[in-house]
């Protein structure tokens, strides 16, 4: 680093943010911001992914997303309703404290306390018991085969540290003084937080006393949020950054063709789909009055068959999407291969519309986010164009996610007739898809909270209930297949595709890409 003048020297010494540039610094950017460090404040992929470098859960996931032991060395279901976790010994938090069962019990309580956004990680009725310093039991009200599926993002905090810093209460927005834990971090993970300036920069450093063997060779990691696609890509291309994500699909070619960079792509877990309001007797935003055309399965099917997903993949997604027959990624359901999409057939679609009594089509507005999914708005435009060909006039209402979600979710009174949404089951399991997206709901969302269109088939609900209780994997999968078949026959949704992940990576860097779009430094090797 070159310095101008003496004054600066003094300043530099005072400045903690200044780090010496070395080969082992990783600089990367993401489109969104890391708002705070408290691991329970926001249930959102990027935030959790970032925390995953600092904090650890009892389990963790490998690059292929299989569950691995982490802070728990192993676990067993000692009774159908009792799971026992054996904790790893000799693990130290970044502040030097030992990790033990007290921390797990504490974290289980804190993650379910008021203000936590991750309360769903552990059911409120689950009791957590310390057996000894390194053994913890979880007592469930009913059997749950997927109890630990999302525990890779339930991070264990240090009880002593949290209490000492008066941070037991999860930071709430209404607090006038910030929670210590939202500005500081103390995990067991491979990296410590050196400095964190929300929305500007977060600097991590290697944690030398990490319990696991480090594959990475990093000393420092520097994260900058860059919202503008063009700027983010420019920063990668110009060599200012080692890694950026996401790379807009149209720029993949450019990143690939650049000598010093490459694009890592792969399918993501999220399924993007279209939903209909099938609950109201008259659509809120449509030219059809007095009835709801989406209650007619022929109309839904016509919409389905009017869309050419291959064209959307080739042209909008640049090949970086997998048209999907199911509402869940094939990665997350082993028997997904048994399902196929309905064929693209505009003629048949038109015929279905005529049959349903809409020979001239009708108008409906499509709610669409424009900053949430890959090319979300472009997809909606393409959908509008395809539907236009069978006589459906679509008014596209594309908005930033803030306004979009405020409108279409339960809090906005499910104010939508036709919408585009993406879904990754938090538990990585079909039960979540069936319950949250397909469960019959009332006006407040009880039942299927994210079933925005109010699709309802009691048979599906019955199957879903059985799936939750079934511990035998094969029988369970069969039940899931049966449920999916029902929903597909109903054309409950139009699944579109699993969007692709695209990371731009400098050739100086080796790393592993995970399908859940979490970026973990622990696999990064810098040349």
């Amino acid at each position, binding site marked *: 680093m070159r310095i101008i003048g003496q004054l600066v020297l003094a300043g530099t010494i005072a400045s903690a943010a200044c780090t010496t540039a070395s080969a082992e610094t990783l600089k990367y950017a993401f489109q969104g911001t890391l708002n705070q460090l408290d691991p329970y404040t926001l249930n959102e992929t990027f935030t959790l992914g970032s925390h995953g470098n600092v904090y650890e859960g009892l389990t963790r996931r490998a690059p292929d997303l299989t569950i691995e032991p982490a802070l728990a060395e192993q676990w067993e279901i000692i009774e159908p309703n009792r799971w026992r976790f054996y904790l790893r010994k000799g693990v130290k938090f970044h502040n030097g404290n030992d990790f033990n069962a007290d921390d797990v019990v504490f974290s289980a309580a804190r993650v379910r306390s008021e203000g936590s956004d991750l309360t769903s990680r552990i059911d409120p009725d689950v009791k957590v018991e310390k057996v000894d310093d390194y053994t913890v039991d979880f007592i469930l009200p009913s059997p749950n085969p997927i109890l630990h599926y999302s525990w890779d993002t339930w991070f264990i905090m240090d009880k002593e540290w949290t209490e000492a810093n008066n941070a037991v209460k999860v930071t709430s927005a209404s607090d006038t003084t910030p929670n210590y834990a939202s500005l500081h971090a103390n995990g067991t993970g491979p990296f410590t937080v050196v400095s964190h300036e929300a929305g500007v920069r977060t600097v991590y450093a290697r944690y030398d006393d990490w319990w696991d063997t480090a594959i990475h060779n990093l000393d420092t990691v520097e994260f900058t949020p860059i919202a503008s*696609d*063009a700027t983010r*890509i*420019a920063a990668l*291309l110009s060599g200012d950054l080692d890694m950026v994500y996401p790379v*807009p699909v*149209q*720029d*993949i*070619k*450019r990143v690939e063709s650049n000598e010093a960079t490459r694009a890592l792509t792969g399918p993501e877990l999220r399924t993007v789909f279209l939903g209909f309001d099938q609950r109201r007797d008259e659509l*809120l*935003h449509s030219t059809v009055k007095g009835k709801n055309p989406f209650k007619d399965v022929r109309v839904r099917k016509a919409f389905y068959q009017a869309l*050419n997903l291959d*064209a*959307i993949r*080739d*042209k*909008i997604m640049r090949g970086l999407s997998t048209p999907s027959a199911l509402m869940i990624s094939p990665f997350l359901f082993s028997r997904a291969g048994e399902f196929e999409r309905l064929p693209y057939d505009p003629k048949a679609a038109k015929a279905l519309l005529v049959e349903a009594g809409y020979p001239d089509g009708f108008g409906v*507005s499509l709610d669409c986010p*424009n*900053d949430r999914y890959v090319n979300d*708005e*472009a997809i909606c*435009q*393409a959908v*509008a*164009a*395809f*539907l*236009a*060909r069978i006589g459906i006039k*679509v*008014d*596209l*209402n*594309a*908005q*930033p996610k803030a*306004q979009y979600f405020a*409108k279409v979710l339960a809090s906005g009174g499910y*104010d939508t007739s036709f919408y585009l949404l993406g879904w990754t089951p938090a538990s990585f399991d079909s039960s979540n898809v069936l319950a949250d997206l397909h469960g019959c709901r009332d006006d407040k969302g009880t039942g299927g909270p994210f079933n925005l269109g109010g699709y309802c088939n009691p048979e599906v609900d019955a199957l879903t209930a059985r799936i939750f209780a079934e511990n035998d994997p094969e029988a369970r999968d069969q039940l899931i297949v049966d449920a999916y078949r029902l929903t597909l026959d109903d054309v409950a949704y139009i699944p579109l595709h699993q969007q692709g992940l695209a990371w731009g990576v400098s050739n100086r860097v080796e790393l592993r890409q995970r399908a859940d779009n979490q970026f973990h430094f622990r696999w990064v090797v810098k040349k």
Partner: protein
Amino acid sequence: MSPISDDLAMERRGLAFRLRQSDMLHSFLRSKIAMLSALITLAAIIGATFAPWLAPHDPFDLASLSILDSQLPPLGMEGADPRYLLGTDDQGRDVFSGILYGARISLAVGFVSVLLAAVVGVLLGLVAGYVGGRTDAIIMRIAEVQLTFPAILIALLIDGVARAVFGNLDRERYAFWILVLSIALSFWVQFARTVRGSTLVERNKEYVQAARLIGIPPFLIMIRHVLPNVIGPVLVIATISLGLAIITEATLSFLGVGIPPTQPSLGTLVRIGNDFLFSGEWWIAMFPGFALAILVLAVNLLGDWLRDALNPKLR
């Protein structure tokens, strides 16, 4: 007063006169730049007005778009489709048609917002200048508050409000008015200040006193006597504001407050094309950007010339 103006310039007031005076026409014909900019502006207005008849494709007609035709390069490049002179964008829209239709929207936003700003600004300016006193003070304080909210902030706020209030309505329809309102809101102040200034001068002129003397009511005096005499600078500001409004619209589209991409303005086209700048499809951004720059440049040059031509001190 310069000696020569005694001899030559018989009169230095009145826009009508100056426009009618062949001086204006002469200076216009002499200035090649003014001619060219007028020509371009005219061409843009005609192109925009008659876009539905001139454009080879209708970029707003979703039914005619085929995503399979997207990202085709302009003629002369490999893989070009002869149907698309300047190539197509990510939705398969013909860029050339998009520019024509986009100019239509940009100009519409510009014209309507400037018109609105001018009407509001001129009226408030007239009243403030003519009535004076407390009315004047209040109007000018409002203008001051207004100045602390630049167009961008206003648009962001109004857009937020509109989304909440009209959220369920067709956005394509109200987005236009949001832009118009935001731009007009931040532009009226300049009109008001200028008109107020000229009105302060005019209201003390003797022709106004003559009108007061025969009992013409103040409102009629303002409209009939003062207004026509303060309209000259308004025209100049309007022209310059038009360019600024078009640019502001484009800028706002970058922040996602602009015209929705199904019916893109020039600015929205640039914003969309922005995403393809690095990926090699430069034509999606550059052609509309070029068109935008030329249009605004022409309007600005026209404004420049108008200002110089209308400024008696520079003759």
